């Protein structure tokens, strides 16, 4: 009898100790899902990037983030048309050698250039990487206008038509065997602004996916690309109204998805009270005047999304719809015009998406 009560007491005490340990442990491991690791990268493509990955182990997450960051910075240097880097031939090198000689380029750059050429074709010239001569004029005026608003000016007709002539004559010769690219026309230049961010983002994400990484999201200067899920739940994209800064719609997605947005509010400068934004219409050589304030494109490839968002900005609604219907995989788009009206096709129209 006595022994049994001691046993009971011992059992009870043990149970107590166990419970208490449980109490002590649980708060610290606290109902864990996978943890989210993020990193911000300041600087590439003259903007910033936010990369996020859901992983069980911190080491895996850091490996991913390190790789993404270094790849991003490399692409930034390769696609840079304003600065050159020691020991590296980039697009500025190519532009400076226009009309002179072929330049040996990293095969990834050659891929990008080829992609740019096919984008020009696919968008009927709306997105033209060879419009560099015109675009650089606008870039100069815009930068000067932002630095010194008092003396902001618009490129003259003469300057623009001269540049346009060069641009329309411009060609790009890519020799994959020799690993070179060449701009035969002096004064012509390559400007991959509408292509590079999206293309680089997609290239990096595909590379990392092939290495086995999943459940990540990247926002490279407004080009969004996600893979997998956010630890079991879908990634949430909200589309905001640039005029009122409120959210128009919410989209939930899992799996490979990319969203790119072109907007008149992103880069602009003002001359005599008139805003001049950065998306130049190749037909007029002036900022696109189709009345759009913002165009967002959703598909499964960040490069395609980037190209299409720019292209749609330089097209009216109907032409835009037919452009995106041509593709092999579904493309959704959302247009917002100056009056605040919205037009949506695909996932944006459903307002909820999958």
């Amino acid at each position, binding site marked *: 009898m006595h022994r049994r009560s001691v046993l009971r007491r011992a059992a009870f005490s043990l149970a*107590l100790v166990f419970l208490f340990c449980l109490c002590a442990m649980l*708060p610290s491991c606290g109902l864990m899902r996978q943890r989210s690791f993020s990193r911000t990268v300041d600087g590439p493509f003259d903007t910033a990037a936010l990369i996020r990955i859901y992983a069980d182990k911190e080491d895996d997450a850091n490996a991913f983030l390190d790789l993404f960051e270094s790849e991003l910075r490399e692409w930034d240097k390769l696609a840079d048309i304003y600065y050159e880097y020691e020991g590296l031939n980039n697009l500025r090198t190519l532009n400076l050698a226009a009309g002179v000689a072929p330049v040996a380029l990293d095969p990834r750059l050659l891929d990008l250039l080829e992609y740019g050429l096919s984008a020009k074709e696919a968008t009927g010239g709306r997105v033209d990487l060879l419009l560099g001569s015109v675009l650089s004029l606008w870039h100069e005026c815009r930068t000067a206008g932002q630095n010194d608003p008092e003396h902001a000016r618009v490129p003259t007709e003469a300057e623009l038509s001269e540049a346009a002539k060069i641009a329309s004559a411009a060609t790009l010769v890519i020799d994959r065997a020799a690993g070179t690219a060449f701009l035969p026309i002096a004064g012509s230049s390559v400007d991959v602004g509408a292509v590079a961010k999206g293309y680089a983002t997609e290239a990096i994400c595909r590379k990392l996916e092939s290495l086995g990484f999943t459940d990540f999201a990247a926002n490279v200067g407004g080009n969004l690309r996600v893979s997998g899920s956010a630890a079991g739940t879908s990634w949430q994209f909200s589309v905001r109204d640039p005029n009122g800064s409120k959210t128009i719609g919410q989209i939930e997605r899992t799996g490979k998805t990319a969203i790119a947005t072109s907007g008149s509010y992103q880069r602009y400068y003002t001359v005599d009270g008139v805003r001049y934004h950065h998306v130049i219409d190749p037909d007029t050589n002036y900022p696109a005047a189709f009345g759009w304030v913002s165009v967002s494109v959703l598909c499964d490839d960040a490069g395609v999304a980037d190209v299409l968002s720019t292209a749609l900005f330089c097209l009216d609604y109907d032409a835009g719809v037919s452009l995106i219907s041509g593709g092999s995989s579904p493309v959704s788009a959302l247009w917002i015009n100056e009056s605040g009206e919205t037009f949506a096709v695909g996932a944006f129209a459903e307002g909820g998406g999958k």
Partner: protein
Amino acid sequence: MKPTERLSPARRVATAAVLCAVSLLFSYLESFIPMPVPGMKIGLANLIPLLLLPSLGIPTAACVSLLRIGLSALLFGSPVSFLYSLAGGIVSFAVMALVFRFRLFGLTGVSVLGGVCHNLGQILVAIFALGTVRIAVLLPWLILSGTVAGLAVGLLGGAILPRLRRAGVLPEEETKKE
């Protein structure tokens, strides 16, 4: 001295004082045990009021409890910790006294409820002090730990009370109805 002997008033005061000091000591020692959640504790100091309820009566137990809280805050704590301790202590003791007085549960049950109510009292004060209900997320943890701690202290109390009575430190319960 015989186990059933009633204590003289002087003895009562002395016993209460010594036990109060013991309670203070328990409270101090316990503060060194790290806890994952703020406010979580074993509540060993509560053992004394628990033992005093059936021994020296509710008023004495109340005094010892309050005294211990005051001294503990004075010696080892801050005005803030005093506020929380007091809140927890008042709620906890009130419930313990009621449960004991109306014989709703045995000693163990009294202790369990005391432990849980101590934490509830603290959360209530925290909600008012911080001005937000968010602190209530700790509730499940504190109810669980209050229950378990109360159980442990209660079982301990049940084990040592007879021994203390046999040793003459504490008197038997006054059961005579007059």
